[in-house]
């Protein structure tokens, strides 16, 4: 009976594959609406009160706008601020705002609103998740309704970039407290409806101050189950999926003319983080041995089905200041064993590996555990949820190894933080970061960044694995979505259906 059943099922799958290419996945091409999938549902829609990336995916530059914005290439562009002047000493920034800009609630966007927004984010009782972005700000003042003066307490090379983050968007003083459930910004789309557990719908803002977008209605659907995501794309229920959760299915989609797969860059450095103060891992040789034991190509092939770039330090390969350090610790199990022997761990030892939920982490974890066992390190895998990861690993540093992707842009500075979960302490590195913060000239900044990359790679703070790709699957007729993700955003302003 079982045998018969098996053949029946196989026959069923086979037939369905014969039918598959015939079917047309054209749901919305004729209209101007868009159904786009994202993996995670945001907890709420206020980017100034949570670190959840899904909030930015939906709202950044679609609903909310900041003084500046970060574009597809990671460059700072003006947005609500038309232009700005910087004083000679670099401590005073004067922003000149666009006039005639209104929030979706009808109130005017002016210096009052900007001052309100920035002060709110900086306040001592603020729940902003990226409060450090505003650390350099001394005061915000309004000499005129459309002129904002920001004074700094020290020179800052990154202020304009920081103000382009989703956490720094300008909100309306009138409705700021309701933004979690009824987001109000100045953007080209306004919030329409949130069907919890299902989708958020936004519609075109016809009063928008800038060029109007082509789409009139966009539904963000939340699908975390990879199979459901694939089925929704194949069946045409979705027009696009940003951050497609099933890399193993991409090849299949690429060979299908109806779909376009964009493999872009993201800011996600995926690392095997090591607790630099715990047991054998405090020994540089042990950490180097671990780095030597890992073959990045296999990892990228096995966990990501070939999609992802190897990295040798905590830095995005597409950044102009990137240094390729992947050759520093090449795959060499023999060398790894020798290093372990030198460190006095010839007989091998046990480590735990705590893995958060994303599939890149779980899959890489299985592969790495297998690789490390070949050099004598016995790894126990402990899968954890995000909540537990944050409290066990991140906060209490109760871990040996973990795999995680650091998705914040330009976040090499975390290695200079006291008490960060890597338990890495280097005064030399801190000095470089300090210098970087105060340097404004680009080429000098790049030199410092390069220096920083080499330092942490030499100290082998973590094993640096690969840069997470940003994969977008879309209907071939849909155009204008970002290929790269320099910040977590799905900018819909220029997205349109081709004829």
């Amino acid at each position, binding site marked *: 009976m*079982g045998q018969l*059943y*098996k053949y029946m*099922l*196989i026959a069923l*799958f086979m037939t369905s*594959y014969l039918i598959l290419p015939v079917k047309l996945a054209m749901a919305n091409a004729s209209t101007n609406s868009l159904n786009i999938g994202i993996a995670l549902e945001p907890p709420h829609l206020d980017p100034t009160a949570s670190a959840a990336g899904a909030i930015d995916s939906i709202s950044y530059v679609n609903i909310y706008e900041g003084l500046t914005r970060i574009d597809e290439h990671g460059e700072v562009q003006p947005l609500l601020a038309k232009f700005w002047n910087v004083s000679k000493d670099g401590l005073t920034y004067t922003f000149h705002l666009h006039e005639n800009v209104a929030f979706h609630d009808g109130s005017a966007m002016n210096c009052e609103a900007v001052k309100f927004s920035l002060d709110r984010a900086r306040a001592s009782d603020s729940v902003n998740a990226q409060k450090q972005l505003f650390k350099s700000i001394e005061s915000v003042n309004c000499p005129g309704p459309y002129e904002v003066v920001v004074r700094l307490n020290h020179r800052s090379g990154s202020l304009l970039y920081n103000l382009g983050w989703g956490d720094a968007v300008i909100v309306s003083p009138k409705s700021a407290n309701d933004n979690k459930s009824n987001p109000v910004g100045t953007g080209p789309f306004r919030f329409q409806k949130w069907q919890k557990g299902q989708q958020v719908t936004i519609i075109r803002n016809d009063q928008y101050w800038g060029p109007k977008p082509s789409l009139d209605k966009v539904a963000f659907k939340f699908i975390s189950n*990879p*199979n459901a995501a*694939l089925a929704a794309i194949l069946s045409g229920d979705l027009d696009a999926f940003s951050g497609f959760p*099933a890399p*193993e*299915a991409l*090849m*299949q989609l690429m060979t299908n003319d109806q779909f376009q797969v964009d493999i872009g860059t993201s800011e996600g450095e995926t690392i095997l983080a090591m607790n630099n103060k715990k047991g054998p891992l405090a020994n540089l040789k042990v950490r180097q041995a671990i780095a030597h034991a890992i073959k990045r190509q*296999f990892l990228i*092939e*096995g966990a990501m089905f070939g999609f992802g770039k190897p990295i040798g330090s905590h830095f995005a390969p597409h950044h102009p200041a990137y240094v390729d350090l992947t050759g520093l610790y090449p795959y060499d199990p023999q060398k790894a064993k020798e290093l372990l022997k030198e460190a006095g761990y010839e007989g091998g030892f046990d480590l735990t590996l705590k893995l958060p*939920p994303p599939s890149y982490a779980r899959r890489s*974890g*299985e*592969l790495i*555990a*297998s*690789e490390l*066992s*070949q050099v004598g390190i016995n790894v126990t*895998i*402990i*899968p*954890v*949820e995000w909540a*537990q990861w944050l409290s066990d690993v991140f906060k209490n540093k109760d871990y040996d190894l973990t795999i995680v992707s650091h998705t914040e842009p330009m976040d090499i500075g975390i290695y200079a933080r006291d008490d960060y979960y890597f338990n890495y302490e280097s005064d030399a590195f801190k000095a470089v970061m300090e210098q970087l913060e105060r340097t404004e000239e680009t080429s000098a900044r790049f030199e410092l960044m390069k220096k920083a990359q080499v330092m942490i790679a030499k100290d082998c703070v973590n094993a640096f694995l690969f840069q997470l790709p940003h994969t977008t699957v879309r209907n071939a007729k849909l155009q204008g979505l970002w290929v790269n993700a320099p910040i977590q955003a799905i900018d819909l302003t220029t997205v349109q259906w081709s004829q």
Partner: protein
Amino acid sequence: MVKKTVSSDKRKDTRFSELEDRARSWQFFKVALHSKSFILGAALSFLIITLGVIAIFWLPHDISKLSVMNRFKAPSFVYLLGTDQYGRDIFSMLMSGARTSLIVSLFAVGIGMVIGVPLGLLAAGRRGIYDIIFMRFNDLIFAFPSVLIAILITSVYGQALINAVIAIGIFNIPVFVRVARGGALSLLGKEYLLAARLAGKGRLRITLEHVLPNIANLLIVQASIQLSMAILAEAGLSYLGLGAQPPLTSWGKMLNESQTMISFAPQLAILPGLAIVISVLGFNLMGDGLRDLLDPKLRRRVS
């Protein structure tokens, strides 16, 4: 024809004889060997159990060694059913999955029996307030949504096999309380119990020597049904990513990991699904076969 051994008129005479009662309780296992569904069920269960037990000691290939170069190999003499996305032998994975399924379901049903049966017997023996408390306790456990509580348990205590066992086991307790209580109550009027009591035997002794052997058949039938349900429950939990963790594997986990590869590697999703179906079918058929033979009404008509 064999079933005539305990025909209805004969039963009437032997109603008060314990020996006959007990013999009937065990005899049906012999009788069961003549039931087709029992035999098929037993054969399938035996297959799964054998694979699972072997997997505890030996696997054809080491599934903790991953080799990306080896992935998606077609079936061969080296890899009986081919290899998966990490180059692991699928047959070994299925065996390891059988082991997980068996361990979880046996221990979960074991928890249910070890805790549930004494409680049920106590409720039946003492009646009164004990009975009321135990039955309310039963209602209480039944009232909690089992899947959600299982998810909660694994969130609290970590995603390990033991927690899947506990989560599924808890919800087996009330089932066995009910069966044991019901079975024991039906024996209450029997004369041999009275005789034993008159002979001065204590409650515990009577329970162990007279009640338990007489409800063993009921418990075994229920256990085989609970086993199949536990296998399904474990598959569901591990499909959600809870339960067995590498280097162990489980059929539900295999299904979860391969579902998006149906288009180019359908066997990866079909085989573990099939394994679940076969083992659940096996235990169900076995339980059914046993129950049919137990049920006097049904037996009367068949004979």
